[in-house]
């Protein structure tokens, strides 16, 4: 189905928009074959072909799911490539074709043992790169040559050592090329050289002439390297490089490396960085090469404005430390880095990167591990002063700088002065938030406070001053309550022993309870109650005035009369916090009065009930029991209920009820193998007699009844996945949502299971699949359930593969039909499909060897239920398969010597790829 240019452009766009969605509406194999057909179609424009090749270059993993498709694609693209004439006009398309084949070969792993394709591709690539200085084909083909170099380099990168037998050739090409393409040749050569030296350094017995021998090698490529599983990590790692013995001869290598470095100036900065990186590793492995070989480059690099080169220099520093950088150089480089971290002409992201580099600066004599953030020893307060944040910085810069100057201040002797400056900075941020309070500034301010407290929590003077500022801020902007609570929580989490969060909480509480009642509009009160509920969690903060404040509020205002549920809940959540965390003895009567009042006066029955419940708990239970009941998830027998009883809304949940996502599947679905026919579309009311005449037409007429034979019912076990945490061993109200992610099926309705216990038998249920087209499909399932402690969880199950064979059904005719009738129907059907020549029907043939297993065994195993006739000489079978909603698959299997042939007739050609792969599967299994 070729389609026009514009159709294909649209298809390509639709594919990019969502590849998975697009592929769900067709089969991947069909799509790939369509793509290949279009590529070979002369009527299709080059532009569209390039778009299509783009898909192949970007999504090979999605498209080439087995080696057969990959092979066919690679071969057919390669043949298009070879047939295209070598004229300037075709260069661009040729580049794309070559890149596509290379991508398929490297990315998919399906062709690693396919010597024919590998040899073809490699000889094409090598042939292309051998045309140095445009001698043979001229300058128009430079893009192709450059691409071939890149492809070879990618081969070598993904399969280190693959090209090491070609070093001599690659070296001579690299030296010969004088056009700008020498960059591509250099990068290729260096990659191969580094990998070859690396392989050498990993082998045990290395002769003294090994390197010379390496550099002069020019042999055939051994494809075995491709088949070995790679451990790139071991090859790329720059730590633990084993140096080669110092006796090894390195004269040739040294002159080669020196020349490469001299010419590095001719490469683009990113490529220079790549060259330096590989050469650094070579020098690290070959001890007789001195790091000083890089010295001449350093003089050029020290002043650079380019990030790749700066990064390379830092990398050299990390690799060679004082064997390349003297103490003076180190100091110099550090100053350059500080200067670049604040240079007005560099972009913010780049400066932030340099700031980060400062905290991991590769020192000659590192004291700390480089994984943690540390200031370099040579970093001075003067340098930190250059990086002091201002109000005009963006938020990331502010935080980055604040962190850095705070670290400096902690280390420095001039701590007092530095701390004062940082605090003043915090105050200026405070003023900004106080005056204007945009969300961005507010978040930044609280982050700054967090950094400040995390560094200087020991300084009591500043901490208490900070508390005052925070209280002042809250006094004017009570909508900051969630920020304040988050700050208290975050600091407590970070510094378990710090008293500051508690003192901030107490200060806020004091402010709130002393507020004149007039200032308490409901809008503000709701924020205050949030803060009070949080503060009441601190057992060291006495709550007597809090309770009196609440009592005063509910008695004096018309809050109870209005009966707003949310407000009532907020009041009760403070009470609950107190009941849970506080010693209620000293506040017993006030609290009881409060609850009593709410119970009696609040105009909402739900709130009344809860107030009464708390009142009952308070008056009837000892403190320990009481705290146990209101505590979330700590009681025993009634814990699932305790939660729902003792709080209306979970505090952490904010405005929504939260569902906890669980990473690992808790449950799994196991398909139950079918017993007998599960065809739920009984063959209408027709009897055997009805069919006697004109049986085919009558058979087909059945499908005019809506819903006839349109479903496949499958049974599943719902059970627990392996190694599930004990907390999930008993789950309740399981809600399963199914998703086939395919447009070929009707959506499945959800399923409810009351409970599921690990100790009991799995739950069995059936699902009715209604296909529009019977394509294989994956069943994705999401389960939402409640744990024993009452929290709701959500878990994604492992998808279940509904394979092609699961869709086979016996013919929808009365069960009492004799075989002969089915056979007759088979023959009629066969004839009619071949005769009508409808666009949908198709005849196909499949052959396979029966040496290992006789045909009869295969038929018995897979088609027994569907066989309508069989003969013995020659051995042959006819199998009549039905797939809902109305697809027929007629197989005629016949033995011929060692082979069996299967003639396939179906009324829907789109199924052919599935039939094909199904037959391959069952005939190749052992």
């Amino acid at each position, binding site marked *: 189905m070729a389609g026009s240019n514009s159709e294909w452009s649209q298809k390509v766009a639709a594919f990019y928009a969502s590849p998975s969605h697009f592929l769900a509406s067709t089969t991947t194999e069909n799509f790939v074959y369509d793509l290949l057909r279009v590529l070979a179609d002369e009527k299709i424009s080059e532009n569209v072909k390039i778009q299509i090749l783009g898909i192949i270059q970007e999504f090979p993993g999605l498209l080439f799911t087995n080696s057969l498709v990959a092979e066919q694609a690679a071969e057919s693209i390669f043949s298009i490539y070879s047939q295209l004439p070598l004229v300037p006009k075709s260069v661009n398309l040729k580049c794309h074709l070559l890149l596509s084949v290379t991508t398929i070969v490297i990315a998919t792993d399906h062709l690693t043992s396919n010597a024919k394709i590998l040899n073809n591709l490699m000889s094409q690539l090598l042939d292309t790169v051998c045309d140095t200085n445009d001698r043979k084909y001229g300058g128009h083909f430079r893009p192709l040559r450059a691409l071939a170099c890149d492809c070879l380099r990618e081969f070598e990168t993904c399969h280190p050592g693959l090209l090491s037998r070609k070093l001599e050739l690659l070296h001579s090409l690299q030296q010969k090329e004088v056009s700008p393409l020498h960059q591509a040749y250099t990068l290729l050569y260096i990659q191969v050289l580094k990998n070859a030296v690396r392989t050498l350094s990993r082998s045990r017995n290395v002769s003294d002439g090994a390197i010379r021998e390496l550099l002069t090698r020019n042999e055939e490529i051994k494809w075995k390297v491709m088949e070995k599983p790679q451990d790139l990590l071991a090859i790329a790692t720059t730590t633990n490089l084993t140096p080669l013995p110092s006796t090894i001869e390195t004269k040739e290598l040294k002159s080669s490396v020196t020349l490469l470095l001299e010419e590095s100036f001719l490469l*683009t900065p990113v490529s220079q960085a790549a060259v330096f990186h590989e050469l650094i590793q070579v020098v690290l492995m070959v001890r007789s090469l001195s790091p000083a070989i890089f010295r001449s480059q350093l003089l050029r690099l020290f*002043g650079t404005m380019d990030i790749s080169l700066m990064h390379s220099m830092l990398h050299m520093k990390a690799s060679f430390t004082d064997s390349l950088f003297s103490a003076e150089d180190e100091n110099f480089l550090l100053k350059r880095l500080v200067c670049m971290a604040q240079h007005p002409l560099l972009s913010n992201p780049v400066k932030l990167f340099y700031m980060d580099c400062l*905290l991991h600066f590769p020192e000659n004599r590192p004291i700390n591990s480089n*994984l943690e953030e540390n200031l370099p020893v040579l970093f001075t307060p003067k340098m930190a002063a250059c990086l002091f944040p201002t109000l005009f910085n963006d938020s990331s810069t502010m935080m980055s700088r604040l962190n850095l100057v705070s670290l400096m201040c902690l280390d420095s002797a001039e701590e007092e002065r530095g701390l004062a400056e940082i605090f003043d900075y915090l105050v200026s941020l405070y003023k900004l938030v106080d005056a204007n309070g945009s969300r961005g500034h507010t978040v930044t301010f609280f982050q700054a406070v967090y950094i400040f407290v995390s560094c200087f929590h020991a300084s009591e003077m500043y901490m208490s001053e900070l508390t005052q500022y925070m209280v002042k801020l809250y006094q004017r902007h009570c909508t900051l309550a969630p920020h304040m609570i988050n700050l208290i929580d975050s600091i407590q989490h970070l510094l378990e022993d710090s008293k500051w969060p508690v003192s901030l909480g107490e200060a806020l509480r004091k402010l709130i309870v002393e507020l004149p009642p007039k200032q308490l509009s409901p809008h503000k009160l709701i924020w205050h109650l949030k803060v009070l509920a949080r503060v009441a969690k601190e057992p060291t903060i006495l709550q007597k005035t809090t309770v009196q404040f609440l009592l005063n509020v509910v008695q004096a205002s018309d809050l109870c009369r209005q009966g707003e549920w949310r407000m009532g809940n907020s009041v009760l959540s403070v009470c609950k916090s107190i009941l849970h965390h506080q010693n209620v003895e000293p506040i017993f009567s006030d609290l009881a009065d409060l609850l009593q009042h709410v119970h009696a006066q609040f105009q909402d029955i739900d709130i009344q009930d809860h107030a009464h419940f708390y009142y009952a708990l308070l008056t009837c239970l000892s403190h320990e029991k009481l705290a146990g009941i209101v505590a979330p998830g700590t009681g025993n027998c009634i814990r699932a209920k305790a939660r729902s009883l003792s709080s209306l809304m979970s505090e952490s949940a904010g405005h929504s009820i939260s569902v906890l996502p669980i990473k690992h599947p808790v449950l799994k679905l196991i398909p139950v193998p079918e017993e007998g026919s599960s065809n739920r579309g009984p063959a209408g009311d027709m009897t055997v007699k009805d069919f006697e005449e004109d049986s085919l037409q009558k058979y087909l007429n059945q499908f005019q009844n809506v819903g006839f034979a349109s479903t496949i019912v499958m049974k599943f076990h719902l059970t627990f996945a392996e190694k599930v945490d004990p907390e999930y061993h008993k789950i309740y109200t399981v809600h399963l949502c199914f998703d086939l992610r395919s447009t070929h099926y009707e959506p499945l309705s959800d399923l409810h299971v009351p409970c599921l216990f690990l100790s009991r038998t799995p739950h069995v249920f059936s699902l009715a699949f209604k296909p529009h087209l019977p394509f294989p499909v994956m069943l994705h399932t999401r389960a939402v359930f409640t744990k024993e402690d009452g929290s709701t969880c959500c878990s994604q199950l492992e998808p279940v593969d509904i394979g092609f064979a699961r869709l086979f059904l016996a013919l929808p005719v009365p069960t009492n039909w004799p075989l002969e009738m089915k056979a007759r129907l088979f023959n009629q059907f066969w004839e009619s499909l071949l005769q009508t020549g409808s666009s949908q029907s198709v005849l196909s043939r499949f052959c396979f060897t029966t040496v290992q297993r006789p045909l009869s065994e295969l038929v018995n195993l897979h088609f027994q239920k569907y066989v309508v006739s069989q003969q013995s000489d020659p051995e042959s079978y006819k199998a009549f398969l039905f797939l809902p909603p109305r697809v027929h698959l007629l197989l005629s299997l016949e033995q011929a010597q060692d082979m069996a042939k299967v003639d396939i007739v179906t009324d829907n050609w789109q199924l052919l790829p599935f039939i094909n792969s199904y037959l391959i599967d069952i005939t190749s299994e052992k």
Partner: protein
Amino acid sequence: MSVRAIWLLGLEKGTTSVKLSRRFPTVEKRARNFNGKNYTELPEDKIFLNALLTELDMTELDKNFVEHRDSCCRINRTSVYEIAIGDSVLWPVLVMTQNAILYACLPLVEQSLTPRPPLISLRGISPAFALLSGLMTFLNMTQRSEPEITNKMTQISAMLMHACPLGTPTDTDFGLMQTLSGSFVPQNPISSVQAQKQPAWKPGIYKGKPQVNVCVTEQIRSMQYDKNDVIDVWQEYGTVTCKCDLEGILPTVTVSLNLPINGSPLQDILVHPCVSAVDSTILTFNSVDDVDDSLFNGPYKFPFTPPLDVFKLCYYTSQVPIPPILGSYQMKEEEQNLKITVNLKLHESVKNGFEYCEAHIPFFNRGPIVHAECKVNHGQLEVSREKSLLVWVIGQKFPKSLEVSLTGIVMFPAFGISNHSVQLTDPFCTGLTAYVKLYFRIPDYTLTGCYVDQHSIQVYSSAKPRIITSRELLSSEYYIWNSKGDAPVASRPLGSLRNWE
């Protein structure tokens, strides 16, 4: 040195879209190998887009506090983000933003992802920066109309085919690639006698009249407060831009920057990669520590082989002793009227010859100007009512006294009457917090005194080129804050005069 994928995402008019994405499956295969069990598959574009917007706090903007977005311990100190995709995370995603386009790139991490390695140790991070910066420069070279952008996206796809076909970028100068597309192929094959390799960053050869053009552009920014307890700050920085049209494969040029005897020394010098060597003395002058550079006044020599296009030869900063224009601004509220006074004084050492000089006086959060009664002793005043802005065009010259002033009263609609839709807003400017912003350009002048002497430029090339030099001073973020109001302070509270960035 490879990247797994890049994305260009559009953020226009409240809608977001994927403008371009490119993934590199062979690099992906390596990522799977390197990252082992912490490997996260690349999501589809739309999923990535949404996840990125969530990470960048660009969702749920109507909500006051959302913990996963606003928590104080969730601090981003770099432009590298961790993007949550389902249960797993993509890291390190480098994100840069410019002109309503998000540029994102995921470099390959050639090591285990746990514990998380520092950015400095990731080989792929600088190519990712280079790639995104290159794309950014390319997209900002011309007008940003919608069809233009679409066209450029197509060009980018084609250019990536050559600059980064398999995820390892070899060139990031997309502007040059565009210039050369078409003329990329040389007319004649390489002559058999050519022995000199042609630089990869100079893939063409200029033919025509030789010419060298060098321009020194200095920019000055300033925050002035006119207060005793707040220190004014200013910062000066310069760029030397070159365009050299010279024949030959490797012509070399040496440009010297000269300073007059009393000029301010150049510091924090950064040079273009085409510069072949820099005297390390001039690199030691920096704003970071107290190297005594007062005795050094050049010349600063830069030998280089010029690329084909315009390029930035070097960047520098300098600590000039004075800002060129010293100003004060007083704004007071009297009922619904604002009484304003602005005084500006040009320093006597500064060249009094502007191409333009304007003072913009915006009024934020007050609605459109109803009436303005202002007097200036020099230049003209324009009132832009809708924009709530006074523009004082000072012109080409300050008067002899070098001082100009503006006084007057500006009236606004009574509180609550103003139409909020046309209001100018600013995060800083509420109440009496207000500023005057200056825009000026002084041609043929630099504040440091830095200049390029035509005769000092040395060119080693077959023909003698025409040499053009120029210089200019431009204002950039030049603010004078209302001394009667609270102004956000730019300097360190007790800090020194100079550092401000």
